[in-house]
């Protein structure tokens, strides 16, 4: 009776006569051939909490993306408070008064809570202000100076919500906001308060209890189409479910579990298995059984499934396959043990675009399909076709690029892959995410037939109804432990949700928290800090050198050390800037060579020459940096490849300027900058100035914070409103300028030009970055560390020389140092990593 949108739109009952805050009309968006949203319309009034409900893949996320300017609609119009709204970026949306708490959370793990709350204008980040905001929303348990990766998932979700609410938007979009919240009461009260102030709230969920608690009206979305808007008070759950799935919720058939062989050894059993986000998980999965895991987002189930798939090692505990103790060090080994894993993210963890469906399916077993060392294509086709029939995939798609298929068909192909690998136990993590209703039904069919054949299935789903429909038995996970084991009559959706939120008897038991957040001891923290590590290394080397040659402890001795170190220190600081954004810049070698030969050939003597030289070096660096930044940030080229090419071009240009070593550097640069004039050490002053400027730029500006944000998680940074492209562009520009300065200082030190002078700087700069503890994964470390790392390397060279290592072998020392530094850094990271619960 609610099938027609028109009939289902019921006039608001008792709503305040208020302005419409959001009006959406005729909104349509397709991804390729797949429509995500069709002719969608919606209106939300100021002060209203409007529910948007639908299953996974119904089009809710697409609407969120359109409202935030992340995706442009194909057709349709949106108005905010009566004004036409066509956002081109997240910041456009912000300015128009739209704030969103994203389901995938837009927090940066490497930044503090206060900075995260202030994004995207973190220049204003202030812990006192952050504490006030947190207090206002009743989140006094969250410390503003805590780093986000150290706080729990539930706390992170609250931070995400508080940030959106604290913007006092006209329209607040909450995308599945209760996913990780154990006590949603807090959120409900906050929402009611903010709605009372006149904010329109679009509350996206698929939990009807929450809808009933908060909303007067709910709009139902299914397969990209609006099914209708209902008056919540006058509609029962059955009816809304019916609108969401297109039929009344399926009943469980009772003829299940009959094939289960009692007393036989379980197909898979876990004994006291623990990881970093779950602990003491014990259960057995029997042949013929479909066992469900029900849990809210972030209760440890993700890691549990990863462990069972062989992709993450467990901390402690035992896994047995058919009674035999099994080690699952890799997915390949898990496969050999008969475990087949279907990961959650189809796009990033499943498909291989560019390969046809057949190759996608046969990949894990293709080694077994060879004859005389070559793949037997006919046999491959036979095998794949066999499984394709099992999963209702038509033969004609087998030769198509998998990318050309709809999400549902891609998922079927992935299921076929797991089946073909000969699995006896399926580990399925949310197997129906983002697929259409038809595919869902056929995946259910596959799962049932698989279990009916005497094999076993472990399944997690975000849709509790799915688990109720499919499973013989269901385990409920809460805070990393199994709190309930339900079967038979008890296996019902409301029972599961109660257990999963820890509200029934499960919560009455005191739940042991999984390995939480050990307070880090100061010493451990210091070892984990790359800068301090580099400093310690430096001091040790310095002590060795001082013992052999006491003159280094004098002012001229130290001046020499500085002179030797400064070009590399500048180059390393530039490289580190780029590395922080999770990119690489190879152009360092080319820029140094180019500015060096220019200074050695083009300058007059005297102060004018010195100043001109500085300007020239900086300009060359900035120009090359801008080119790199443009190619990487705005043309999406891989940074290694693009900067490799610009490095080559610069080296060539350097050769054109000066064909062979020679030329002269103005004396004011070569002698004036490197010597000591009346107790004044110019190099020390330059170092101090550069460090100060960089420290201000990186630690005291919004750009500096954005660097760390982009490096740690570019997607989250862009959701938080950080201008990721611009940030990267300026990082390359600044880096190039530093290389130019490095070339200038190199000219001062060597007093001559050499077109090959940059060559050694490529490896040394990255060695310095590694020694200085800047993470090549981006987002962690500091420029000072890289500069100290550079000083350390140049000192190492001196020490090696002083203890008599032949200069031929310094390359071995250098290469080994870089590898060792990276290994030590990686080990420290691993030892210190704290995974929040």
């Amino acid at each position: 009776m609610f099938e027609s949108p028109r009939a289902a739109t019921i006039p608001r009952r008792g709503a305040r006569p208020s302005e419409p805050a959001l009006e959406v009309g005729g909104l349509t968006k397709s991804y390729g051939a797949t429509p995500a949203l069709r002719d969608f319309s919606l209106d939300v009034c100021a002060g209203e909490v409007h529910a948007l409900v639908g299953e996974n893949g119904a089009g809710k996320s697409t609407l969120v993306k359109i409202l935030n300017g992340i995706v442009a609609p194909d057709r349709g119009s949106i108005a905010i408070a009566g004004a036409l709204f066509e956002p081109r970026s997240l910041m456009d949306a912000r300015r128009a008064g739209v704030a969103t708490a994203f389901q995938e959370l837009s927090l940066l793990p490497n930044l503090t809570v206060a900075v995260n709350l202030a994004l995207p204008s973190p220049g204003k980040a202030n812990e006192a202000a952050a504490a006030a905001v947190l207090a206002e929303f009743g989140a006094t348990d969250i410390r503003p100076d805590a780093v986000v990766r150290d706080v729990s998932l539930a706390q992170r979700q609250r931070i995400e919500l508080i940030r959106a609410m604290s913007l006092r938007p006209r329209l607040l979009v909450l995308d599945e906001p209760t996913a990780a919240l154990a006590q949603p009461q807090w959120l409900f009260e906050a929402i009611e308060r903010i709605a009372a102030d006149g904010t329109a709230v679009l509350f996206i969920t698929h939990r009807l209890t929450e809808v009933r608690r908060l909303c007067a009206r709910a709009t139902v979305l299914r397969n990209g189409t609006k099914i209708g808007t209902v008056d919540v008070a006058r509609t029962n759950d059955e009816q809304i479910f019916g609108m969401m799935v297109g039929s009344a919720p399926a009943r469980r058939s009772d003829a299940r579990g009959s094939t289960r062989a009692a007393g036989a050894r379980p197909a898979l059993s876990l004994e006291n298995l623990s990881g970093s986000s779950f602990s003491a998980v014990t259960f057995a999965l029997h042949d013929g059984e479909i066992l469900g895991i029900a849990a809210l987002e972030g209760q440890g189930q993700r890691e549990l499934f990863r462990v069972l798939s062989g992709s993450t090692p467990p901390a402690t505990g035992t896994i047995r396959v058919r009674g035999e103790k099994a080690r699952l060090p890799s997915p390949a080994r898990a496969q050999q043990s008969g475990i087949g894993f279907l990961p959650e993210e189809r796009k990033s963890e499943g498909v291989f675009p560019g390969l046809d469906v057949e190759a996608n399916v046969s990949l894990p077993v293709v080694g077994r399909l060879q004859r005389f060392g070559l793949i037997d294509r006919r046999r491959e086709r036979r095998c794949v076709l066999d499984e394709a029939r099992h999963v209702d995939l038509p033969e004609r798609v087998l030769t198509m690029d998998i990318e050309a298929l709809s999400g549902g068909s891609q998922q079927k192909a992935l299921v076929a892959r797991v089946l073909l690998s000969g699995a006896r136990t399926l580990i399925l993590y949310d197997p129906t995410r983002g697929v259409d209703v038809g595919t869902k039904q056929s995946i259910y069919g596959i799962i049932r037939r698989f279990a009916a054949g005497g094999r076993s299935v472990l399944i997690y789903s975000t849709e509790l109804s799915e688990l109720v429909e499919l499973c013989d038995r269901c385990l409920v996970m809460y805070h990393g432990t199994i709190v309930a084991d339900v079967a038979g009559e008890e296996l019902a959706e409301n029972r599961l949700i109660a257990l999963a939120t820890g509200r029934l008897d499960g919560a009455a038991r005191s739940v042991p928290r999984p390995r939480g957040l050990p307070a880090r001891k100061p010493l451990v923290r210091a070892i984990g800090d790359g800068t301090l590590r580099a400093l310690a290394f430096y001091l040790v080397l310095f002590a060795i050198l001082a013992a052999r040659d006491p003159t280094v402890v004098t002012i001229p001795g130290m001046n020499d050390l500085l002179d030797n170190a400064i070009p590399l220190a500048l180059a390393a600081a530039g490289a580190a800037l780029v590395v922080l954004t999770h990119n690489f810049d190879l152009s360092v070698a080319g820029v140094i060579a180019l500015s060096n030969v220019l200074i050695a050939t083009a300058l007059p003597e005297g102060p004018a020459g010195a100043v001109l030289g500085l300007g020239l070096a900086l300009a060359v660096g900035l120009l090359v940096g801008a080119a790199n930044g443009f190619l990487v940030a705005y043309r999406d080229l891989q940074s290694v490849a693009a900067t490799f090419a610009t490095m080559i071009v610069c080296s060539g240009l350097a050769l054109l300027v000066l064909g062979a070593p020679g030329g002269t550097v103005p004396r004011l640069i070569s002698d004036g900058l490197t010597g000591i004039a009346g107790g004044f050490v110019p190099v020390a002053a330059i170092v101090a100035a550069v460090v100060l400027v960089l420290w201000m730029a990186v630690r005291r500006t919004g750009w500096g914070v954005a660097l760390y944000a982009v490096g740690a998680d570019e997607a989250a940074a862009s959701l938080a409103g950080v201008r990721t492209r611009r940030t990267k562009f300026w990082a390359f520009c600044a880096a190039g300028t530093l290389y130019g300065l490095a070339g200038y200082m190199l000219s001062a030190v060597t007093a001559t030009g050499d077109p090959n002078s940059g060559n050694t700087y490529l490896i040394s700069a990255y060695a310095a970055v590694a020694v200085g503890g800047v993470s090549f994964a981006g987002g962690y470390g500091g420029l000072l560390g890289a500069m100290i790392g550079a000083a350390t390397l140049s000192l190492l060279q001196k020490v090696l020389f002083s203890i008599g290592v032949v200069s031929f072998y310094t390359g071995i020392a250098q290469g080994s140092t870089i590898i060792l530094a990276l290994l030590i850094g990686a080990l420290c990271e691993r030892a210190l990593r704290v995974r929040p619960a």
Partner: protein
Amino acid sequence: MKIGRDDAQALTLFAITIAFMLVMSRVGPGFGSASQIEAILVLASFVMVVAFGQHFVVLIGGLDLAVGSVMTLGGILAFAWIGDSATALWWGVPAIVAITGLVGAISGIGVAFARIPPFVMTLAMGTIAASAFLGITQGVPRGSASPFISSLFTGSWIGLPPVVVLTIALTALGSIVQRMTALGRRVYAIGINPNAAFLAGLPVRRVTILCYAVSGATAGLAGILMMGYSSGATLTMGQSYLLPSIAAVVVGGTSIAGGRGSLAGVAAGALLLTTFTTLVTGLAVGEGWRIVAYGSVILIALLLLRSDVSRWFKPPSGIQTSTARLDAGA
């Protein structure tokens, strides 16, 4: 697999190369002559042998910056060990290829197990290798040239210098491995989506190490050949081949991000670049221009490939680089 597209690309490149040669023959006497084409083929063989291994590494999304030093290492060892002895030839060549392959494998281990970025790891290994041969030779390579290896450049098999025939055979063998064996499938799959490859149970680490080992081995082989060609070894003999090896791979249509491209395309790229270099050398412009041209060619190829890739793999609108996570939940 999109074999058709890659093949079309390789054919186009070959056609461009031939057109280029025809144009060259008009430029002046000596250009485009049979002897010059033979010389180009020989020089292109060196590039191709180094690019062969580089291609395997780039296909899995890596980069091998050690090939220059490793090639020199191969040449110096061949100069020292093989000489004019025929028996030394039989153990020497496999031993040298194995040693350089091992150097590559170590790079692969660093990349696969310690997750060190490929260019950093290979740069470090290249530095270590260079330092090692510098120390071993004390700066002066000693030995004698192998007449047999030199004869690969002077003789004639089916009308071509033997080294050219051997290179074509190597390329054909490599193409078969890449396209018709399980190993080849795995290489492409890892390049396309390393994460999915790992979860699908592919031996990602083993294949990664193997690819770097192949790169080391072919760089060493190129060094042996180079020693025969120039009847000697120098400390810088491999240095100038790093750049062409990467350029040939990229110009040949292989995506630097991995997972796409064919050896036939690389061969076409090597030939085109060598022809181009010969032309530039013939025009007597400086070394600097040649290098600038190489850098620009790589950049242009990257930009062209990129636009192609974006057409095939990207959603039509939105923030393209940063919404992968969002798209997954669409």
